[in-house]
């Protein structure tokens, strides 16, 4: 079975900042593997270890330094990596990114595509559904437990209402939640071996995707301005014997009861 894991490099949480010039996330600092993608990589590795003759391929789009995020995932045990790195693709929104990822995945034709559920930097939750649509494959998100058998995936997922169990035939696209597993630490041997694993770098043209379909020209959304959050407003103070009563009045006033 060939498993593709779409991973992303994100700025390390302690240093996240918006860049006022580009109005996007400042990516100049050190990047790290998106922690939620580590869950996806871990799940792929578990499936590989449970089966036989499986391959785990990492797919990412980003500047050349995005290779660093891949390296950690390779150190965990993935087999090879494909990085789409092209200046034309800088500034891509989710729509444009999904085009590129779908093109790579068409090329790789994996049985299973895994995503982490959340991209820490864009705080979005949209990429896998868009990619599944372009690939015309069934998709299940928020999966907290995953099994593969008889050519299908069975996923248990947590929703706002409880849990569902959904079955999707392969090839399928799955987004895993961070509850699914505890990602392994790469071993030192793994870290040292990562350098030797194949890392392919592609341009957008290599994928047959038109330059106008990616980057800012390929995006259909834009950030217009960055502002400070509005101040919280006046704080009210309550003391004394009737404190509980005043709290209830306040909650009622705010229509929270």
């Amino acid at each position, binding site marked *: 079975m060939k498993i593709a894991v779409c991973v992303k490099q994100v700025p*390390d*949480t*302690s*240093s996240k900042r918006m860049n006022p010039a580009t109005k996007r996330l400042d990516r100049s*600092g*050190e990047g790290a593997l998106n922690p939620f993608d580590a869950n996806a990589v871990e799940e792929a590795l578990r499936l590989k270890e449970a089966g036989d003759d499986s391959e785990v391929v990492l797919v990412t789009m980003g500047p050349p330094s995005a290779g660093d995020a891949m390296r950690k995932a390779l150190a965990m045990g993935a087999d090879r990596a494909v990085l789409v790195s092209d200046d034309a693709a800088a500034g891509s929104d989710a729509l444009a990114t999904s085009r590129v990822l779908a093109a790579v995945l068409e090329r790789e034709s994996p049985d299973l595509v895994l995503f982490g559920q959340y991209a820490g930097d864009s705080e979005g939750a949209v990429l896998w559904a868009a990619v599944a649509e372009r690939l015309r494959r069934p998709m299940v998100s928020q999966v907290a437990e995953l099994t593969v058998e008889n050519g299908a995936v069975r996923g248990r997922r947590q929703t706002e209402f409880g849990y569902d169990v959904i079955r999707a035939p392969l090839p399928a696209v799955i987004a895993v939640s961070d509850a699914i597993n*505890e*990602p*392994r*630490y*790469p*071993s*030192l*041997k793994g*870290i*040292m071996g990562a350098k030797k694993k194949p890392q392919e770098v592609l341009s957008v043209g290599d994928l047959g995707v038109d330059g106008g379909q990616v980057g800012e020209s390929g995006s259909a959304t834009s950030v217009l301005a960055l502002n400070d959050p509005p101040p919280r407003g006046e704080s009210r103070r309550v003391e004394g014997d009737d404190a509980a009563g005043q709290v209830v009045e306040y909650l009622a006033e705010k229509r929270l009861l």
Partner: protein
Amino acid sequence: MSVRPADFPPPFSAGEFVTEPSDPAHERIDVGVLIVGAGPAGLACAIRLGQLLEEAPGVAERLGDVPVAVLEKGKQPGSHLLSGAVVNPGALRTLFRGRLATADLPFLTRVHGEGVFYLTRRRALRIPAPPTMRNHGNFVLSVSELGRFLAGHAEEGGALILPETVGEQLLVSGGRVVGVRTGDKGRGRDGEPLGNFEPGSDIVARATVLAEGTQGHLTGVALDRFGLQGESPQVWALGVKEVWRVPKPLRRIIHTLGWPLRNGKRYREFGGSFVYPMGDDMVTLGMVVGMDYRDVELSVHDLLQELKTHRLIRNIIGGGERLAWGAKTIPEGGFLALPSRLHGPGVVFCGDGAGLVNVPALKGIHYAVESGRLAAEAVFATLQGGETAWRPGALERYDESLQSSFVWKELRAVRNMRPAFAKGFWRGGMKAGMQTATMGNVPRGNARLERDAEVPLIRSNRAARYPAPDGTLTFDKLSSVYASGNRTRDDQPNHIRIQREVPVDLAELWTRMCPAQVYEVGDPDGEGTVEVQVTPSNCVQCGAITARGGRLTPPEGGSGPEYTLT
């Protein structure tokens, strides 16, 4: 009264951290030269080795797939680096001679002017800068940024840097250091293996360079194992600093002494503060205090907060914003506290870990770089000559080269000048300017008398004067821990060795001493002692506890602060 921390030694023995290689051959990792610590010393060593190996491919080949490996316990190089810092550029220039110009080095500001002030609560009295503190020709830099810069060059030169990796045990076989065993990952609060438990590995090397910085863990273990302690025990100061964005540029470097430290002989509060510009829009300021202070209520973290309320400092940072905070101990024993030899069979010691700090000049970074460079040359010469690094005398050439260098000369010249500020200024400037105020300070004699932990404790009402944190100019410890970038997971095993039931004075000493609020005075246990509560995930690994009755051991790789601007 007169509780002494040394009377309550921590449950620690160096022997616990010495072991033989035990991994099966196919799991063992073989490298050529193993460097522990991606700080200025370790990375200078890696860079110089890369340069030498480039010219000697035969030697490089003999060192195998990984000729040079550098272990770093922080998240990445720079994460655990902290200093002032005003740096003498000489050693860096030497390291990069013929390859980089001064303009390529990550200096932030050239030192143009400096002021030394004696502070009282309300005033700042200018005094002449003593000769040991003259910084003309030096540069301000961030040592954390220097770490990142040097790491890039080390990797370009072929070194493999392994971040989030702790050198936990010294591998000793047949009486010689053959490498390092790395720390485990994925243990729970009680040491139990968690779902993603990953055991450490044996890294076997032809030569091991220990460049772990202050309170170097394996350095301490090795000095003990091979009986290499110096004439005097090492002593430390604790430095706590912040980086601020400021509305107007600071055009000179500033050092202060006096307030908020107390002059009285009984307090033994030796130290001072520094304020350095970092470019036009940032400033770094810090407080440095010797760890032989006596008052249980002293808190260097809070002294820094108090310092900021002084007019001199307020004028510089008022209207600005705190960007970063951190803390680290500085070895202050100088020449007399150096190990008796800076090498052992198969191992050499560099940088702050070895104690190579010029205390009155407050300089150690260029010594670290120089010692790393010389270590590289000594190790290379040994391996090139086909010798093993544990042949008796093989690494003697490192000691010899260090002893012929400016490092040794300078350390020797200032060997009686501890602690930094008070004594240095006392000799140079105080006599000229300030006859009265600091005459209470008793200068320390030539011989180092006692360990910091042997100093008996006293109690005053010092804590009442610390400013209440206002969240704009002054901050509480937890906010500072947050500003260090620390987000260590909560369920790690406790890496701090202390006795957990101690007299209340000792518990309070630790509680106030620790800049990261790791310790808290717990409940009395009915036998005259109290329980000490420990929150190890707050720890920024400054090392203060080791100076005063406990022992810091390395936690899981990747934990602790994530410094970037310090």
